[in-house]
């Protein structure tokens, strides 16, 4: 377990948004599965923490939900991205890419480059 990294604040929200962006409307379990799948075993996240986050995102207007039938004929709540959520995703994606690029350049720098 020691190898797994903690989820940074806000990262999980970004993952949820991206998942919904790529896969379209999805229920909570589906989102959890997807995140687990993509991040593999590298991420230590209790699936339970996902639900308060979903509630919060919906409250903030980034996502929307309604109840509908799931694959095995049970009722489930389906989440989908709203226009505001899409804009937020784009903004945060850009932010992440920038941060990543800057950090990458810092790691590439060697002592002789600065002299």
């Amino acid at each position, binding site marked *: 377990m020691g190898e797994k990294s903690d989820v940074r604040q806000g990262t999980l929200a970004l993952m949820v948004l991206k998942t919904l962006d790529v896969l379209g409307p999805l*229920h909570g*379990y589906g989102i959890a599965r997807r995140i687990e799948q993509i991040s593999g075993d590298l991420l230590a996240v209790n699936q339970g923490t996902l*639900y308060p986050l979903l*509630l*919060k995102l919906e*409250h903030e207007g980034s996502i929307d939900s309604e109840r509908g039938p799931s694959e095995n004929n049970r009722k489930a*709540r389906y989440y989908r991205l709203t226009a505001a959520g899409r804009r937020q995703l784009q903004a945060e994606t850009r932010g992440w890419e920038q941060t990543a690029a800057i950090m990458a350049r810092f790691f590439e720098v060697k002592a002789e480059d600065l002299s």
Partner: protein
Amino acid sequence: MRFLRRFLERLANFASRRRADQRLREEMEDHLALQTEENLRDGMPLAEARRQAVLKFGAVQTIREGYHGEQSLPFAESLLQDLRYAFRQLANSPGFASIAILTVALGIGATTAIYSVVDATLLHPLPYPHPEQLVRIQDDLPGAGARDVGLSVPEWWDLQHSGIFQYVSMQGAGSANLTGASQPARIIFKPVSPNYFAVLGAKPQLGRLFDPQDRTPGFTLEVVISDGLWKRAFGADPKILGRSLRLDNDTYRVIGIMPAGFRDQGRTTEERNTELWAAVGFAGDPLPPPQRDARLRLESTARLTPGLTIEAAQSRLDALVASLQKQYPADYPLQSAWTVRLVPLSESVVGNVRQPLVLLLGAVALVLLIGCVNVANLQLARASARGREMAVRQALGAARSRLVRQLLTESLLLSLLGGIAGIALLFCLKGTLLRMVPESLPRLNDISISWSVLLFALGVSVLAGTIFGMAPAFQAGLADPSQMLRQEGRGSKGSTAQTRTRSALVVSEFALSLVLMIAAGLLLRSFWNLYNERLGFDPRNVMTVQTWLPIPNDPKTDIYGTAAQESTLLREILRRARSLPGVEEVAVGDLEALPLGHGHNDLNPFPLLREGHETPGKEPPIVDAAVVSPEYFHLLGMTLQRGRLFTDSDVDTTPSVAVINEAMARTYWPNEDPMGKHFKLRPTTPAWTTVVGIVANARSESLEDANSPEMYLNAYQRHPKDLAIFLRGRLDPAAIPLEVREQVQSVDRELPVFGARMLPDVVTGALAQRRFSMGAVLLFALTALLLAGLGIYGTISYVVGERTREIGVRIALGAQRKSILGMVLRKGLKLAVVGALMGLVAALIVSHLMTGLLYGVSPSDPLTFLGLTIVLTTVALAACYIPARRAMRVDPIIALRYE
């Protein structure tokens, strides 16, 4: 903003808490079900599938709570819980709850009532825009011993051009006969400079006000009238603008009407009731031409230039005064030391009511404090009964802070309920209370239960709740649960700390109520002294009715212009008044001659120029002079000490004579015989007046002051315009005013007759404000005494209850029942004595602060201090006696078996 949005979101979540929680739970259930199904598909047994799903999911409860902690208002939630619990607690002990709420309601109701008066009078004395800019300009000649001498017109102009003020107005006070309506009326009017309303920042409800830039030297012949006069005399005629009315036979044009709510500045009833304002430049007919040394004895009000503080304005003014003194050395002799002061208008309006009101507020705050202490005591008693509950809750893991908060919530709930009850009480009693307020209070009509008053009540409630909730909460925070549980199990006496707190509370209660009682006692004695003071005149069976003669601006139209002309009128009025039923004696005088009708030097002050006392460059003293007919002295029962009174042979053709009182003789002719001495009251008149008699002092100016110098001049030599008719006899107060009016108007149809009053009522009225503050403080003191008595009763009963077993043992071992009684009484007495000692010290401080309100009694009057201490101690002993008897009657067998 971000914070605010977040808070609002949380607030919304708080409201929709249940729904969100519900959904969270559903979703989590769904998730777990799906995961379990999948695990089943992977071949796990059902139990294991479920377990793995839960493991992977994490702790459901923690997640839910975490969500709430973050998304909602945990504080508000626990507050709601506390409140609900507190309500239940109160409902469970209705006796305690109703006593506590009633105590607080009385305290807060009384405090709020007094505060509403303070709010209207002291805090918002001026109903004008930017009241902080308004000042009264007063100038003194300290070198000549003269205060508030008034500005001369050139000085007024200098101030206006100084740049210190936006506007400087001058205003006089007067009254005039308004004729043309159905009944000639005497109305109070103010001759004001045209910028008067600009100074106040007032707006008319109809028409316009004076042009502040108007430079007319005399009367502009434009007047503004009050809403009341408009409705009364003109039937609220909207076409009144431009119409003319006659004042003292002069014709003026109405240009505007003030709104109904407009109240003129001023502290006296007269100023409050001003009904007409006439613009005048004070520099031309009928006034003398402006001269630097001709002080007009007008009041001056000004609005400071915005941004200028009073201090800054004062220092600029001092510089101006200095330069004027250099420029006109002849007009400002150095020894008279002319100075000009700026006084905030609010202060000059509130004036003499500040001290009584502050006293009342202090007294009522003490009552509230005593009430709080009592409730705290009750709470403590309950806390000890609830000690077990608290201990159990603490043992079960409740945090101490949480318990303290719970107790504080209970106290706050109590005090808020009490506050609401108090306000409700106040609303019900508002009318009665307002009737108790003396009429002389400024801004009486503006006293109301406004938002600021309600806010004050809320603040006081919260404060009170915190104060009396502190003690029990503090104790609960200290208590050790394990010890408490063990103790409670044995049911023996509570912690000594608790008893000590309760004793301290009782002691402070006693100290506070002794302070109040001594204050009330001193006020009562002052009132009594004043009430029994020899007046120096006899008001019984005397009625006064006023009638005023017109003073037209053009002396040629004045039919009472000379003393001879007026004497005929006066004699005729007196002859007719004497014939009225029941009338035995009649006299006339001017307004100054009306006892207790005015203050010192505020009506007709004159400079007293004594023959042989002239000192160049020194201002003469200012004196009051009443004008009376010869019958006046006998009618009012004033006694002649030396010389003679006026006789019928003193007329306008004979030398002018005067009667003075002893105080004047002593003040202005010290070490010499004033009889036969000459003086005059106007530098311009050639003839001297001779002192022919000395009468005993009378408290005709103020009840407090027996020694105000007073002078009487002869009505047939001075022709006063502001007349008062004095009648003595077995009078019918309802009929006489009408009969007098009939008689006066049958002599001159145009004379108004008004202001009829019985003299004894006037004397009573002069005591009204004192009676009000004394009555209120007395009421508060009695309440305090009652509360303190209840407090000591409660505490001693509690102590006895706790020590029942011990007392039982003592009795079983042979203690005398008498000594048990003594033991309990001694305990109560100890509390009372300590409280009384502390109270005496505090009372000494308080009584010296209120010296100004006392009359004829020393602020450290031993009789009052000692007597009331004894009263208080007696009450304490009486309150202890009931529980002490109970202790004495303890049956040892029952007491021990009870264990």
